[in-house]
């Protein structure tokens, strides 16, 4: 059952709002004290609906979504784990949501303590020396990391112009480096899906500012030569940046700082359980080693005589990347998560991610090709290329999974696997759920042989069927308009 646009439910004069009467004196007939030239000419055609319309409309819209709360959501590299309800409650306390960023430090000691302790906790978990909590998302963190790379090399005497990025990297990596004016050198992965050490050595020269590495990589594999990689990079005077999107199997297992990582961003909306919000708000704290601390964005929190304050002046800082201090509401949720799991629970998270991913990949490997082997960290990548003979695409499999009530894995990524299905079950799923997913996939693979049409026309049980994406791009319809409806 589809839902009309809220504009289509509009009826002139209907309202859903209430406001107190204007209790300050207003001169008669003087509706506004502002000169005419500052005033709007045409009224904005916003909906005119009743409160019950608003409530039903958005409730019904919500029911058209798959979500972690309703479905298994094994979207690779996105860590769609359970988002604890208690964290929604505690981050909603009035001392957090109704706090103004320009209140003075004395009035904000509670939140400052949280941010300070969260930074210290992330430092300990990752083995870094400092974190900036300002970045709003992973890509924002990458961008800042790339600016810091520039600042570091300039301070050391010479600009460097290139960033090396493996061909298995997330798309944000090259985009972030490019936004900072870097040239991108793509590094081809070896036959095992890992960094090719010889190729890396050949690519390194004194124009390379940094290697952007994802470890565990997007195939879910740990770069076993990480120490050698770090040495090659450092010997060339470059920095080693880690895309920390894939940290769910690393907590309490191994620390990036110990591996020679100079900089990393974390995605708190992935590993640290804060909700994805349909596409944000996230948070992408950037961690660095001592040598890079001077370049971090300002302001930063310091602790002085048992109280906390913001410090603004850091002469080598790359500057501010956000007004105020970051996505604080998200940071509180991550803090609450870490406080609740504690040191005992931390490693359990990653053990859970490891076991679930390896179990699922092992069980699926009897039925579908897993080109780089079943042993993995937090996720693994299957390939549907052998189904091409039956005319079945990865997209068909993904869409048919929706019919069985499972969100699709990430598809056609990483780019180095043909017809990729990138599967990340996360740490919060039960064995039974994984078994059900395996059964569904087995049935779908059977259908691919016996009744391929049912896949090609899938999904059948969702609110809408496959969309005409070509039409959407060719004739963009990006808004409702009164005269057109």
């Amino acid at each position, binding site marked *: 059952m589809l839902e009309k646009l809220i504009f289509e439910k509009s009826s002139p004069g209907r309202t859903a709002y209430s406001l107190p009467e204007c209790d300050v004196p*207003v001169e008669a007939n003087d509706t506004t004290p502002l000169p005419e030239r500052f005033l709007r000419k045409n009224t904005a055609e916003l909906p005119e609906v009743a*409160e019950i319309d608003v409530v039903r409309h958005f409730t019904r819209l919500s029911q058209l979504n798959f979500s972690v709360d309703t479905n298994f959501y094994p979207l690779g590299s996105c860590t769609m784990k359970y*988002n604890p309800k208690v964290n929604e409650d505690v981050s909603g306390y009035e001392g957090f949501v109704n706090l103004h960023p320009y209140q003075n430090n004395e009035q904000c000691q*509670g939140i400052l303590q949280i941010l300070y302790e969260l930074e210290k906790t992330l430092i300990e978990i990752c083995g870094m020396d400092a974190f900036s909590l300002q970045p709003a998302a*992973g890509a924002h963190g990458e961008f800042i990391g790339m600016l810091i790379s520039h600042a570091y090399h300039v301070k050391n005497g010479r600009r460097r112009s290139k960033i090396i990025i493996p061909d298995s990297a997330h798309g944000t990596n090259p985009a972030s480096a490019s936004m900072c004016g870097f040239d991108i050198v793509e590094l081809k992965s070896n036959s095992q899906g890992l960094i090719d050490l010889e190729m890396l050595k050949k690519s390194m020269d004194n124009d390379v500012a940094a290697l952007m590495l994802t470890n565990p990589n997007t195939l879910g594999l740990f770069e*076993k030569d990480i120490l050698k990689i770090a040495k090659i990079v450092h010997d060339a005077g470059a920095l080693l940046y880690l895309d920390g999107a894939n940290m769910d199997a690393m907590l309490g297992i191994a620390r990036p700082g110990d591996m020679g990582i100079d900089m990393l961003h974390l995605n708190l909306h992935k590993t640290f359980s804060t909700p994805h919000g349909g596409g944000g708000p996230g948070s992408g704290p950037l961690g660095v080693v001592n040598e890079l601390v001077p370049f971090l964005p300002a302001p930063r929190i310091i602790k002085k005589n048992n109280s906390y304050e913001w410090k603004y002046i850091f002469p080598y800082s790359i500057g501010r990347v956000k007004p*105020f201090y970051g996505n604080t509401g998200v940071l509180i949720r991550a803090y609450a998560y870490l406080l609740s799991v504690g040191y005992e629970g931390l490693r359990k998270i990653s053990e859970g991610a490891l076991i679930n991913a390896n179990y699922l990949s092992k069980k699926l490997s009897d039925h579908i090709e897993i080109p780089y082997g079943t042993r993995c960290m937090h996720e693994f990548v299957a390939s549907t290329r052998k189904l091409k003979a039956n005319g079945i695409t990865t997209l068909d499999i993904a869409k048919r999974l929706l019919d069985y009530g499972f969100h699709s894995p990430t598809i056609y990524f990483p780019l180095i696997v043909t017809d990729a299905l990138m599967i990340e079950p996360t*740490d919060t799923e039960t064995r039974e759920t994984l078994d059900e997913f395996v059964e569904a996939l087995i049935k779908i693979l059977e259908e691919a042989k016996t009744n391929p049409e049912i896949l090609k026309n899938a999904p059948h049980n969702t609110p809408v069927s496959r969309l005409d994406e070509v039409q959407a791009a060719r004739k963009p319809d990006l808004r409702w308009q009164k005269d057109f409806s």
Partner: protein
Amino acid sequence: MPVKINYTPNTESDIKLMLKEIGVNSIEDLLVDIPEGLLCKQINIPTGMSEMELKHSLKSLSDKNANLNKYTSYLGAGAYEHFVPSVVDHLSSRGEFYTCYTPYQPEVSQGTLQGIYEFQSMMCELLAMDIVNASMYDGSSALAEAAVLAIRHKQKKNVLVSKTVHPEYREVLSTYLQELDVKLIEIEMENGITSVSDLESRIDNNTACVLIQTPNFFGCLEETEELVELTHKNEALFVACVNPMSLGIIKPPGEYDADIAVGDIQALGNYINYGGPHAGFFAVNKEFMRKMPGRLAGATTDTKGRRAFTLTLQTREQHIRRAKATSNICTNQQLLALRTCIYLSTLGKAGMIDIGNLNIHKSHYAMDRLCELDGIEPLLNKPFFNEFAIKISDNCKIEELSRHLFESGIIGGLDLSHFYPDINNAMLLCVTETRSKEDIDELVLAVSNII
């Protein structure tokens, strides 16, 4: 024996079974690729908690903050206290909305996608612009990305930004542009608004864009018509950074021919949250549709001919175009955009006008009453929406005033010298629909007792 929070559901017997299926004896066998020296021995963080303990702990931290339900605040400057209708919290806290991700599978994401489409539509209406994207991190990153768009589009190297733009927005802008081989030039202000003559002296055929905020950081409304005319005469793009809360009443960017409009939607249904999460919006005229950053939802049809929504024009984006994308933005601030969509549905056509008027009347009343006091005068005599600056006579230092006000349960405005060292003893106050006449009279009384 305390039982701590544990979100990993598999029991020891499950794990045993699973390890057997995997074909290993222990979890350590799954970690053989990690060099042995790198395996963690111990992580020094505190022990875990039960849910009850967690709530107590966070409650006591929350109580250490002086929250705006207990104090009457006059702070604005980019983070605004407005009333949030109950429906916004209730509807946006549905798990189906906040525990999903980017709607890559449109067949099971119509709720999010239609929400984005409606958000885009409402913001287009409010701004009188052609196209609005799904959201940006905040107003400042939207402003910076507008400059980047203009630089690329015009292939010119100078970015002009008024000194009346929020100082922290200008800092972010400068951070974003620092490696792009461009020149960021500030335009002087005159009596609280952008100086047209200074703009005239600095704008030339190397100018990619002119960035203006209105109402600006001081709350003053800019003379946008003159600025736009001058900008377009020099073939540069005009970027307006606006407070969408003002637009039920105040002239929207589309009505003065802005090329790009940006800003923050925190004011529309989102809490202050100590400065974040807030969310930005990015609006353009049609011409720039394929150059804009961020996600866009569009209407199309499904195989059965039904209207349905999907992410579109994705070839602009990093997951397709990688290094050649219009921006690196991926995860944005979707849930806040949804909240704004619910808020605008609730306030609706009439509500945005009414709330605009309330903000104008209350702030003007506060300004008038305060300036009746001896020792207080308006810093600037310019039309404003809901923020204004006052000058306080030198015999009462602003820190003193703020401290005494706080003792009376009032959080005063922002000390402008924090951002503008030349402006001494002046305070920027914001008065929204949340302040009653009684609140304002109390403020005036408290100030009169102090100065």
